[in-house]
């Protein structure tokens, strides 16, 4: 079923991740195969038991300083890192779309960001004081910094958004749902512009220990679709897209980066950590149907590709089920191997990187690959960036708890 009515385009992108502090740095690192996942030590002492080592990808460099300079005011102490990443990515996306200070932001724009968690850094510091060190006072901004809607509230205050502003959550698919939700609001005519994406910052010692308890973390690296893959690696950051009705974008002379095709949203209703074949397959199929693509149009897939044994095997089977014979000529990328798993921000960051690949016709390589796994028989982009002729992009996001969000974008010709 094709989208009826208004066409939607992408007019701005923003990203902060372990690969770099803006979109250009992220794209360059992904293309060049410069991954950011490293085994790092996280010290739980003195309040916790020990030091633990995890492979993780962390944002490096000063995100706050340049942002405060650009905004002309201090913001650092009021933001948990997950909000800081969101605000920085939102600013970059608005700047590229030439929308900072634009009157349309006032009432004709929505801001919807997805997060799997909330202000974990803030909560963990608060609880360490309270429970381990037995200090009675809590920081007065603990609640506003930790709440899941803190990033959208912060960005709304900074950029003067007075329309629909809220957060959505679906674990590892959160920003996929945020993108679909924002597009639906533009589609319905509620707004002309939707700032959509997500952010996450969960690399605290206590949080990583909990992830380790899930038995899904690799001790080494993220190796999507490879034989010998042994789990995921946590990342952090934020990514934001500016979606805009085509009419509005054309009327103000905006540069169009891609067209939004559609979304497929499904729930497995099955298991906390095991995926089903039907849920992801039906989400992919629904997204492709919504985009009403020419059946012969070459496609690029940005896979969910977490590097866990089960996800990648199941996702490969789902892709084969949906594409049929076309699977042999459909390149698949999996950029979590470079930037780690950004959980709630993963779908948005993968979309930003993959939209560049779609526009430039150059797909970034999957990193950490050891050897073929017969159960993951796909046309994987390996070794180095590969020229691709794709005219459309499918982005997969599948969450723990069985929540699936697949998105399709079309190359802007």
């Amino acid at each position: 079923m094709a989208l009826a009515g208004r066409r939607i385009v992408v007019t701005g992108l923003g990203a902060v991740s372990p690969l770099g502090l803006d979109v250009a740095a992220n794209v360059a690192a992904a293309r060049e195969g410069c991954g950011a996942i490293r085994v790092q030590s996280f010290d739980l002492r003195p309040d916790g038991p020990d030091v633990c080592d995890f492979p993780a990808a962390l944002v490096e460099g000063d995100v706050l300083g340049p942002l405060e300079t650009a905004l002309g005011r201090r913001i650092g102490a009021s933001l948990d890192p997950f909000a800081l990443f969101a605000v920085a990515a939102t600013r970059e996306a608005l700047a590229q779309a030439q929308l900072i200070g634009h009157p349309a932001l006032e009432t004709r724009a929505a801001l919807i960001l997805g997060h799997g968690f909330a202000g974990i850094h803030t909560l963990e510091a608060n609880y360490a004081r309270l429970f381990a060190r037995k200090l009675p006072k809590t920081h007065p901004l603990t609640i506003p910094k930790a709440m899941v809607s803190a990033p959208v509230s912060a960005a709304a205050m900074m950029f003067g958004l007075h329309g629909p502003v809220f957060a959505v959550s679906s674990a590892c698919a959160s920003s996929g749902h945020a993108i679909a939700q924002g597009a639906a609001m533009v589609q319905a005519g509620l707004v002309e512009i939707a700032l959509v994406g997500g952010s996450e910052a969960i690399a605290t010692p206590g949080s990583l220990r909990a992830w380790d308890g899930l038995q899904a973390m690799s001790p080494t690296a993220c190796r999507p679709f490879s034989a010998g893959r042994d789990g995921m690696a946590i990342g952090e950051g934020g990514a934001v897209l500016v979606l805009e009705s085509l009419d509005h974008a054309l009327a103000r002379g905006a540069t169009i980066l891609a067209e939004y095709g559609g979304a497929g949203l499904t729930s497995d209703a099955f298991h906390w950590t095991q995926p089903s074949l039907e849920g992801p397959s039906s989400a992919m199929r629904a997204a492709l149907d919504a985009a009403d693509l020419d059946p012969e149009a070459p496609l690029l897939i940005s896979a969910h590709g977490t590097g866990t044994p089960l996800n990648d095997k199941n996702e490969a089977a789902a892709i084969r089920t949906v594409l049929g014979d076309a699977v042999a000529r459909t390149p698949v990328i999996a950029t979590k191997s470079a930037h780690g798993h950004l959980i709630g921000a993963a779908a948005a960051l993968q979309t930003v990187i993959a939209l560049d690949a779609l526009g430039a016709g150059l797909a970034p390589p999957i990193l950490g690959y050891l050897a073929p796994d017969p159960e993951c028989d796909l046309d994987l982009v390996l070794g180095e960036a590969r020229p691709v002729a794709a005219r459309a992009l499918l982005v997969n996001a599948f969450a723990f708890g069985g929540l699936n969000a697949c998105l399709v974008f079309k190359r802007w010709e």
Partner: protein
Amino acid sequence: MAALREDLIHLIADEALIDPAKLTPKATLADVGLDSVGVISVVFAVEEKYGVEVPEDALRDVTDLDGFLTIIEGLIEARAAA
């Protein structure tokens, strides 16, 4: 002493999101935009950084920045001397 005051002014600027240039001694807390959440945020940061406890009523009658800084400096120096 002067160095401590300098550090405290930076801490106030960071915690209460205020331009350090506004933080002159004669300025009132209202002038510099230090509201109740800002004051508690600064107190919290002072306690973390200097290991002192600022009693709840210690700042009750303070109106200007100099008075605020003098009380905080007094608590930090008393702890250093103890």
